[in-house]
C-alpha cells in the first residue's frame, strides 16, 4: 500500500526514528484519496493524529499549492492540544525541510499574529471551535476558507453531545457551503455508537469509519489493602499510604481524581506521607495557567514523580513517560476510564498500567464492573442530542456578522448540521425573531433590533458595534465568575465568587496544595496568607461530580445479581453482599429492590424507604422529590430524602404500605413540572442560555466590579419572563437543558418502565447491610457541619454494623 502513496519524506522521518507507518494510517490516506470523509476510531496513542494529517501532507507534498491559501484546518477541543499537535507536526516538516507553513490560532494568540494570519494564511491552521466561529463571523470568511481542502477534528467524540458540539456542527455546515469540496477527517476515542459520531462528522454518502482495535488490553488492578474499605465518603483517605507506595515504585505516575476538592485533599495527604521527598505536583482547572504549564512542562521532561490531576489532564496530550495511572474513586464511565488509562505508556504496542482505588464499598463494585467491561470491550454510549436553540441564536447572529443572508438558504444550511437535522421552520423563525428583537410579544424593542432586512431582502446586522459585541460573547462555555487568589504579589489561581462569599475572614482552605487563610477581598482579588493550620476547610467546588454512566450502572447490577460473580471480590465485600442476601435480598439486573424498615433518628421513630435503583445521583434526586410528593399526598408524612449514585433513601413519620402506587410511571406526569420550576438548576440553566444566546453579555475580563454587579442579574429576568412570557425561547431552552441534565429525565423514565412488575419489596425490622452507606450519607448531608465529625460517623457505623451482624 505504501508504494502507491507518495509519502517518502514522512516515511524517511519515521525510519530515522525507528518507527513505521501503521496500517490504519495508510488506510486513512487511501480512503481520503478515494474521496471519502473518514472517521478514525482508535485508542489513545498509536499515531491517530498523524493519520489525520497524512492526507493533507500527501497533497501538499505532491501537488502544487499556492502560498497564502488556507489548505487544512485542524480543530481540537483543547487549546493546549493545538499547541502540542503543532509541535509534533513540525518535527517531520522541519526534519524533511518541507515547504509547509503550520500555525495555531486560539484565544491565546496575539492580535498581531491573528491579523497576519488573516492577511497571509498558513497552509495548516490549528484552532478551537470558538476561534473557528470567530473566523467564520468575519466579513472575509468566504475568501479565507474557499480553498480549504481538508478539515480535521480531533477528539470528536468529546464534542458530539454538547452545546460546544452544536456550535461546531453549525460551523461545519457553514464551511460546507463555503468550501463544498473540502474533505473531513474525524479522530475519535473508542465509543459504542460510532455511527452517531460519523453522522456528526459528515452526512455524505462517501463517508466511512476506520476502526482500530486495542492491541494489548490494559492491565488494571484494584488497590489491595489490609484496611477496611469505607462504607461511605469520597476521599479515599484510607488508601493514602498504599497509594504512596505505588508512586514510589513507578517512574512517573498520574493520580486522577473526580473533583478539585479531592485533588487538593489527596495532594495534601500525599505530601504528609512524602518521606522520600518525591516530586509530587497538582494540576486542576482552577490553578493559574502558568502554574499548570509549568507542571505540564516538567511532566513532559520527566522531571516529576507524580501528578495529582482532575479531568484537566484527560484529553490526548502526550505527557511523556507515565508508567502508572491511579484512579481514585470510580471513573464513573467506561470511556472516561479508558481515556485516563491511555495516559500511561502512550504507545499502541505496550499495555497501559492502571490502578483503581475505590473510595467506598459501592464504588468497589463499580470499579470491578469497569474492569470487566473493558476486558469484554463493552463501551459507553454517546447519547444523541438535539441541537440547542440558544447556540443556534448565537450562530445566526454570527452568520449575519459575516455577510447578509437569505432566510431559506440559511435554514437549509442549518438543517445540514447533524444536531439540527430535525429543526422545524417554525422553530427556526422563532429563534430568528429572538435574535432580531428578543422575541417578546410586546414589541417595544423593534427600534433596537440587532439584525434587519436590507434592500435585497437579506438579513444583516444593524451596525458594526453588534459584530464587536458578538466577538466578545462567542462560545458556549459559561463559567462562574472567578476571583483571583493572591498570596502577596503572586497569583495562585482562581476560585468561584460564591465560594469566597461563603468564607469568613480567618477561614482556611486548601488551594494549589497549600493551606491558605482568607484575609479579605480587594479589587476582586482574594487576599490570602499561609497558615500553619492543619485542619483546612476544604473547597467544595461545583461541577466536579460526574454521573454514573448507564452502561456501568447495568454492569454493577449484573455483577451483584449472581452469587458466582462474588468470588473475585475481596472477602469484606463478598461477605457484605452475602449477608445482604440472607438478611434481605439482592435484585436481578432488571429488578428493583425496595426495603422498608423503622429506625430511630434523635430518639424519634422514623420509617425508612430505600430504592436501590443504581441510576445515578441525578435521577435518584428527581425520583426522591417525586416520591416524597406522592407520599405527602398519601399521608405518609415524609421528612427528608438523600440520593446517592446507587440508591434513594426517604424517611417518613408513617410507614409506607403500598409501594406500587409510589413507583408507578405516571409519577412523572404529576409533579415533575413543579419540581423543575423549584430547582435552582433551572435558574442556572436560564442564565447560561441567556449568555450563550447573547441576551445578556458576558463578563469582560479586566472590568473592576464583581460579577453580579456588571452582569445583568439573570434571576430578575427569569422571574419577569416566567410571569409575562412563560413560553419564551430561553425558558424553553432552560427547561430542556434541565430535563436532560441534572434531572436526567430520560434515564428516569426508562427506569420506571424497566421496573414495572419487577419490584421486590422487603419489609424489614431493621437496617440492612446494603443500607448502611446510605444511612451514613444521610448523616453526612443533613446534620449541621459543626456536629458532624468523623468520630460521630465512626460510632454510628460501628453501631450499625453490629446491628446487621457484620464486623
Amino acid at each position, binding site marked *: 500500500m505504501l508504494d502507491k502513496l507518495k509519502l517518502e519524506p514522512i516515511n524517511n522521518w519515521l525510519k530515522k526514528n525507528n518507527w513505521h507507518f501503521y496500517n490504519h494510517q495508510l488506510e486513512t490516506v487511501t480512503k481520503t484519496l478515494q474521496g471519502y470523509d473518514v472517521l478514525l476510531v482508535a485508542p489513545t496513542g498509536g499515531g491517530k493524529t498523524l493519520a489525520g494529517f497524512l492526507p493533507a501532507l500527501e497533497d501538499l507534498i505532491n501537488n502544487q499549492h499556492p502560498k497564502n491559501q488556507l489548505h487544512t484546518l485542524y480543530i481540537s477541543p483543547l487549546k493546549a492540544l493545538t499547541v502540542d499537535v503543532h509541535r509534533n507536526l513540525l518535527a517531520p516538516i522541519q526534519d524533511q525541510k518541507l515547504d509547509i507553513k503550520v500555525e495555531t490560532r486560539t484565544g491565546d494568540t496575539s492580535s498581531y499574529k491573528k491579523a497576519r494570519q488573516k492577511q497571509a494564511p498558513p497552509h495548516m491552521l490549528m484552532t478551537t471551535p470558538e476561534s473557528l466561529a470567530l473566523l467564520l463571523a468575519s466579513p472575509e470568511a468566504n475568501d479565507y476558507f474557499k480553498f480549504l481542502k481538508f478539515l480535521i477534528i480531533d477528539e470528536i467524540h468529546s464534542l458530539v453531545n454538547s452545546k460546544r458540539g452544536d456550535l461546531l456542527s453549525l460551523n461545519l455546515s457553514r464551511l460546507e457551503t463555503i468550501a463544498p469540496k473540502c474533505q473531513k477527517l474525524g479522530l475519535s476515542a473508542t465509543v459504542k455508537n460510532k455511527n452517531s459520531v460519523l453522522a456528526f462528522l459528515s452526512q455524505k454518502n462517501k463517508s466511512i469509519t476506520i476502526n482500530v482495535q486495542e492491541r494489548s488490553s490494559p492491565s488494571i488492578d484494584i488497590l489491595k489493602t489490609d484496611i477496611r474499605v469505607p462504607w461511605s465518603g469520597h476521599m479515599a483517605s484510607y488508601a493514602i499510604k498504599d497509594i504512596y507506595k505505588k508512586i514510589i515504585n513507578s517512574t512517573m505516575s498520574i493520580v486522577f481524581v473526580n473533583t478539585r476538592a479531592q485533588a487538593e485533599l489527596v495532594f495534601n495527604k500525599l505530601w504528609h506521607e512524602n518521606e522520600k521527598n518525591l516530586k509530587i505536583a497538582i494540576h486542576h482547572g482552577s490553578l493559574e495557567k502558568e502554574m499548570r504549564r509549568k507542571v505540564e512542562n516538567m511532566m513532559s521532561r520527566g522531571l516529576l514523580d507524580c501528578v495529582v490531576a482532575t479531568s484537566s489532564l484527560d484529553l490526548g496530550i502526550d505527557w511523556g513517560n507515565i508508567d502508572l495511572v491511579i484512579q481514585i474513586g470510580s471513573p464513573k464511565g467506561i470511556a472516561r476510564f479508558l481515556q485516563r488509562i491511555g495516559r500511561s505508556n502512550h504507545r499502541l504496542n505496550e499495555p497501559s498500567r492502571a490502578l483503581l482505588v475505590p473510595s467506598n464499598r459501592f464504588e468497589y463494585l463499580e470499579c470491578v464492573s469497569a474492569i470487566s467491561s473493558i476486558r469484554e470491550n463493552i463501551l459507553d454510549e454517546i447519547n444523541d442530542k438535539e441541537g440547542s436553540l440558544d447556540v443556534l441564536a448565537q450562530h445566526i447572529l454570527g452568520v449575519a456578522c459575516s455577510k447578509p443572508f437569505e432566510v431559506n438558504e440559511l435554514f437549509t444550511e442549518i438543517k445540514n448540521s447533524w444536531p439540527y437535522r430535525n429543526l422545524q421552520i417554525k422553530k427556526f423563525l422563532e429563534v430568528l425573531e429572538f435574535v432580531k428583537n428578543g422575541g417578546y410579544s410586546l414589541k417595544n424593542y423593534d427600534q433596537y433590533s440587532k439584525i434587519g432586512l436590507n434592500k435585497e431582502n437579506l438579513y444583516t446586522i444593524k451596525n458594526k458595534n453588534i459584530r464587536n459585541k458578538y466577538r466578545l460573547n462567542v462560545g458556549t462555555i459559561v463559567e462562574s465568575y472567578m476571583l483571583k487568589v493572591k498570596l502577596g504579589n503572586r497569583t495562585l489561581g482562581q476560585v468561584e465568587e460564591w465560594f469566597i462569599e461563603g468564607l469568613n475572614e480567618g477561614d482556611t482552605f486548601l488551594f494549589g496544595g497549600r493551606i491558605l487563610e482568607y484575609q479579605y477581598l480587594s479589587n476582586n482579588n482574594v487576599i490570602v496568607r499561609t497558615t500553619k493550620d492543619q485542619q483546612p476547610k476544604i473547597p467544595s467546588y461545583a461541577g466536579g461530580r460526574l454521573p454514573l454512566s448507564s452502561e456501568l450502572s447495568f454492569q454493577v447490577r449484573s455483577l451483584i445479581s449472581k452469587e458466582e460473580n462474588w468470588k473475585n471480590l475481596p472477602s469484606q465485600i463478598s461477605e457484605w453482599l452475602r449477608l445482604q442476601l440472607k438478611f434481605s435480598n439482592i435484585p436481578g439486573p432488571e429488578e428493583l429492590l425496595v426495603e422498608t424498615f423503622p429506625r430511630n433518628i434523635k430518639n424519634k421513630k422514623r420509617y425508612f424507604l430505600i430504592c436501590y435503583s443504581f441510576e445515578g445521583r441525578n435521577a435518584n434526586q428527581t425520583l426522591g422529590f417525586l416520591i416524597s410528593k406522592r407520599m405527602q399526598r398519601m399521608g405518609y408524612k415524609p421528612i427528608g430524602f438523600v440520593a446517592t449514585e446507587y440508591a434513594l433513601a426517604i424517611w417518613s413519620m408513617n410507614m409506607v404500605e403500598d409501594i406500587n402506587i409510589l413507583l408507578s410511571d405516571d409519577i412523572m406526569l404529576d409533579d415533575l413540572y413543579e419540581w423543575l420550576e423549584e430547582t435552582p438548576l433551572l435558574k442556572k440553566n436560564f442564565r447560561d442560555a441567556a449568555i450563550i444566546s447573547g441576551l445578556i*453579555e458576558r463578563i469582560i475580563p479586566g472590568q473592576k466590579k464583581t460579577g453580579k454587579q456588571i452582569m445583568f442579574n439573570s434571576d*430578575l429576568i427569569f422571574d419577569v419572563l416566567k410571569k409575562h412570557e412563560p413560553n419564551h425561547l430561553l425558558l424553553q431552552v432552560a427547561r430542556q437543558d434541565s430535563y436532560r441534565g441534572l434531572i436526567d429525565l430520560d434515564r428516569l423514565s426508562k427506569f420506571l418502565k424497566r421496573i414495572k412488575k419487577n419490584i421486590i419489596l422487603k419489609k424489614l425490622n431493621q437496617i440492612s447491610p446494603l443500607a448502611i452507606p446510605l444511612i451514613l450519607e444521610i448523616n453526612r448531608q443533613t446534620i449541621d457541619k459543626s456536629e458532624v465529625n468523623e468520630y460521630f460517623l465512626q460510632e454510628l457505623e460501628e453501631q450499625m454494623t453490629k446491628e446487621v451482624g457484620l464486623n
Partner: protein
Amino acid sequence: MKSFKFKNHEFQISLDGILFWIEKKIAIISDLHLEKGSSYASTGQLIPPYDSLETLNNLIKNLEKNKVSELIFLGDTFHDDQASERMSHETDLLFKRLIKTYKVIFIRGNHDNKLSIDGVICCEKYVLDGIHFIHEASKENINQVSGHFHPVASLKVNSKKITAKCLVHSENLIILPSYGQYTGGLNITKSPLREFIDVNSTIYLLSNKSVYKLPVSKIKNLL
C-alpha cells in the same frame, strides 16, 4: 408588614419594600429605576421589556391596600434622563395615574438628577418633622431617610445561604431597599454601605413570605 419606631414616629415596612409613615399617611419608596430594561436594550442587551409595567403595577396595587395620601420617592425613580421618553403608552398611563391620585414628591437621584415634571415637586431634599428625605445617606448628624444603596443581606439558615433585600435602621437613619423590578443589591457588609451600620443597627429582611426583624448584633451568621 413590620412596625417600628423611628424618632418617636410609627413606621411600617411592607413585604415588597414600601415604608409607611402611619400618622402622616405617607408612603416612601426608593429606587424604581423605571425603564432600566429599555436602557439596556438600547445598547444591545434585549432584556425583557416588562420591568416598568411590573414595578408600577405592584406599587399601585400595594398602595391601594393602605390608607395613603402622599408619596415620597427617594430618587432614581427613572433609570436615566431619557427614560420617560422610552416608556410605552401603557406604562405612561400608569405613571400619570399615580401622580394624579396622590400628592407626590420626587427626590432626585444620581440616575435622574435632572428630573422635572410639570406640577410635581422635584427636589434634592425634603424635610418633614425634622426628618430629612434624601437620595443617598449622609454622614452628617441629621435624622434621615434615604435609598440609593439597594441594601441586601445574606444569612445562613441551616447551612443554606439566603440573600434578600432589606431595610437598614440605625439610630439616626433609615436606608430603604430598592423597589424596581430590575434592581440588584449591595450587601450591607460591603463598603460604603457598611459604614452606615453599627452594633445597634437593625435590619428588616424582606424574604419571600414575611419581613424579619434582625438586630445586627445578634446575627451570628451575618455574612
